[in-house]
């Protein structure tokens, strides 16, 4: 058996008296399209924060490619190959769209800062290279036509897609999407569905996504983990999740 790309082993975090994530364990294999769902306040975003090093787990392990990453600083985790988007969009508002994506590419820089101070040919070449890569990614998420606009001026749906492009620019092995479809209209969701699939199939990324829209998750993800009050209450393929009594109860009769 190969080692999973990411595995959580009884990952737990407590904030004072509140256990936001309680002994959650799951494995994500390379190439998975993995869903993480649960009612509001279930601890999904906190899981992302554990994986990306924003918080250090109180106990339990988080293994990426077989090595422990719990408590590693966020920028080191991005370098290791995990990148995320944010539930409350966190773009660089006054930078342009293409510059936002270029920041994502920054962690692959080869030139040192002195060549940037002096604008040596190496730095110029790298800038052009990153810009070209950023433009290519903007094509993928269909934002190339607004590349020079300020990120803050984009409508909501486009900002979400820009976050995906920015995260993709780090060339991660594992992409974490926190409610990528939130605030989108049905047509935008349809387009997003295709983009996420393309990211997996064409770019061969592994994707872990949080989403409240059940139709969206069930139609997209091949494996799903359900959290409720920080506990893992179900895991499996969409069909099994849909009929799981515990899940139905957690969502209190909401159509699953």
């Amino acid at each position, binding site marked *: 058996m190969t080692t999973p790309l990411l595995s959580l082993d009884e990952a737990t975090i407590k904030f004072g008296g509140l256990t936001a994530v309680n002994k959650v364990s799951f494995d994500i294999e390379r190439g998975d399209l993995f869903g993480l769902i649960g009612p509001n306040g279930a601890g999904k975003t906190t899981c992302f924060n554990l994986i*990306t090093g*924003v918080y250090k787990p109180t106990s339990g392990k988080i293994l990426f490619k077989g090595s422990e990453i719990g408590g590693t*600083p*966020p*920028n080191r985790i*991005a*370098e290791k190959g995990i*990148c*995320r988007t*944010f539930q409350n969009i*966190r*773009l*660089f*508002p*006054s*930078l342009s769209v293409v*510059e936002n994506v*270029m*920041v*994502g*590419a*920054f*962690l692959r*820089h080869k*030139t040192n*800062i002195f060549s*940037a*101070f*002096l*604008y040596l*040919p190496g*730095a*110029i070449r*790298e*800038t052009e290279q*990153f810009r070209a890569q950023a433009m290519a990614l903007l094509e993928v998420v269909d934002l190339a036509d*607004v590349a*020079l*606009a300020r990120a803050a*001026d984009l409508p909501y749906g486009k900002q979400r897609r820009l976050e995906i492009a*920015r*995260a993709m*620019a*780090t060339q991660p092995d594992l992409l974490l999407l926190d409610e990528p479809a939130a605030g989108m209209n049905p047509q935008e969701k349809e387009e997003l569905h295709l983009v996420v699939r393309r990211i997996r199939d064409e770019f061969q990324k592994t994707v872990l996504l949080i989403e409240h829209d059940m139709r969206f998750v069930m139609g997209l993800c091949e494996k799903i983990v359900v959290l409720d009050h920080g506990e893992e209450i179900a895991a499996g393929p969409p069909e099994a999740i849909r009929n799981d009594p515990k899940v139905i109860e957690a969502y209190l009769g909401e159509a699953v």
Partner: protein
Amino acid sequence: MKIWVVRILSIIGTLVAVFGFEFFMRGLVAQDQSLDYIYRLAVLAGLFVTLAVSLNLINGITGQFSIGHASFYMVGAYAGATLTNSLYKIQPLGPETWLFVVALGGAVAAGIAGLIVGLHSLRLKGDYLAIVTLGFGEIIRIIVFNQPFLGGSFGLNIADKNDKSLWAVLLLAILCIAVCRNLCQTPHGLAFLAVREDEVASSAMGVNVTRVKVTAFIVGSAFAGAAGALLGVYDGLITPDTFRMDVSFLILTMVVLGGTGSITGSVIAALLLFSIPEWPRFMVEGGKPWQVTGATLLAGAICLIVSVYLVKRTIDEYHGPQRTKTLRIVGIVGGGIIGTVLLGTVFGLIPVLANRTWDVGALRMVFLAVTLIVLMLIRPQGIFGHEEFGWQKAMKALRFGKPGANPT
């Protein structure tokens, strides 16, 4: 290949311009010794440009709230002075080359100070960081104040001063501008800007926020230190009072007024704010400063308030092409001046207002304060906002009635 040709040509061009200016100024001073103060003003202007642009790297580009920039200026000045006093006699270099050594010495000393302060920026944000930087400035000043070997409150004499160093000051200012501008054009600079915009998101994208902040502090303070070292060597005397808190605030004001993050803005604002208190020097007639009557002052104040209100309203209401907006501002300001003259004449009929007069020189700081207030009311985001000057943009702004030319 082409890059190098352009680069070498622009360096040569810069050198020609700088030394051309140096010799022009020296010629001026040689003709009339009393014009020496103009040379000095040019030196100080160059130093303030360096200070404003380097603080802009920390505050504007990286988004750290540092308000103690004069302390790095001071560290550089004392380092340069000590270096000169102890080594100048035994060094084999000429006085010109020595300027490079001094500037480097000041830069290194201030860079280390910047590192120390920068490390605090990792834990502290916003106002709290501001207090630390301010406190640091005062601590350094008080330490120097009480060190006899640094001259204490009397200041430190530099026996081997070099008062022909305008060229070095200008080169430093240009280098500082070039470094900041170059940085901002590369992904490295984008990482700095990203830290300003959102620290959490930048670290999630793999930006080492710690390193970016500390680098900004080191580089920004190193430039301030080099400026301080050149000031010391130019003046031949430095006292702790030269680096009081109000100097820090003046530099900070330059950055804010120019538009935080805009290098062009910092340069323009530095020149503007530095020069405003100096204008009254030139308002002299027959060897005596202009007299301003109470009538003119009162009329000016009224017209100023009215025109600021009108300009602000025009800008708020009217989002047409740049050009028309500019024309309106010019019109209103012109109207304000005419209004002042007319109103002044009317008020002049009132004896109390007509007979009370001031030397224009006494009003220097009033000019500065009024300019600040007016500019902040008209353009709270600073003269340039986040924008930079670019030839393409300038051409576009000059073109008639084509507002759609901006890419959105």
